[in-house]
């Protein structure tokens, strides 16, 4: 079954910390294909990680 935005959001976060199971990957993929808002959140979570990795270099 297709995950909701709330569930998709959790998967977008979890996949930064653990490998997703096959079913989770599939559900997330299907959701992102039809949801522009979550596709934005996906990029923004990735950006947040990048920004945090730069933060330590700023005194």
């Amino acid at each position, binding site marked *: 079954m297709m995950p909701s935005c*709330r569930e998709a959001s959790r998967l977008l976060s979890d996949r930064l910390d653990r490998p997703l199971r096959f079913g989770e990957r599939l559900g997330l993929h299907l959701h992102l294909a039809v949801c522009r808002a979550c596709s934005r959140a996906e990029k923004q979570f990735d950006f947040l990680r990048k*920004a945090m990795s730069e933060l330590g270099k700023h*005194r």
Partner: protein
Amino acid sequence: MPTRKADSAELEQHRGHLLKFAMLQVRDRAAAEDLVQDTFAAAVAALERFEGRASLRTWLTRILLNKIADHLRASGRHVSIDAHAAEDETDGVEAFFQANGRHVETPQAWDNPEAALSQSRFFGVLERCVEGLSQTAARVFLLRELMGFSVEEICKELCISESNCFVLLHRSRIRLRACLEKKWFT
């Protein structure tokens, strides 16, 4: 074996990250600098006990966490992380989603986010957003994203469950995403 002198230089490479972590946890620059200084002193004294099983940064961060806990306890701000985590039954993202699971406020497109990374003012905003998280959520998030801990290392260090850790990381990311959108990308 590397010499003691090389080890000290190696320790120095982590000062920036340790200082940032301490500042975001105790929210007082002078106190944070003292805590990092104490951490380095303790680390130099205990260097031969560093076994290289964890990374040097992880090892230094563990020492710093103890110093921060002592500091917060002394200033009466200590919150037991177990007690805090235990009372948290929900995932804390209700405010962001409707009952049917859809976004309350739809995430907006961000215009050229990469450009923000070259502006020091952006990092000030990011820090204010991190300071808006709860102490526990901020600690878990910073250990993961600033100090490079694995989820397993975080759980072990803070005595919280993996599921609790994933919940706190998701909550932090949701809140930080919304905070950055509001404070920077509009």
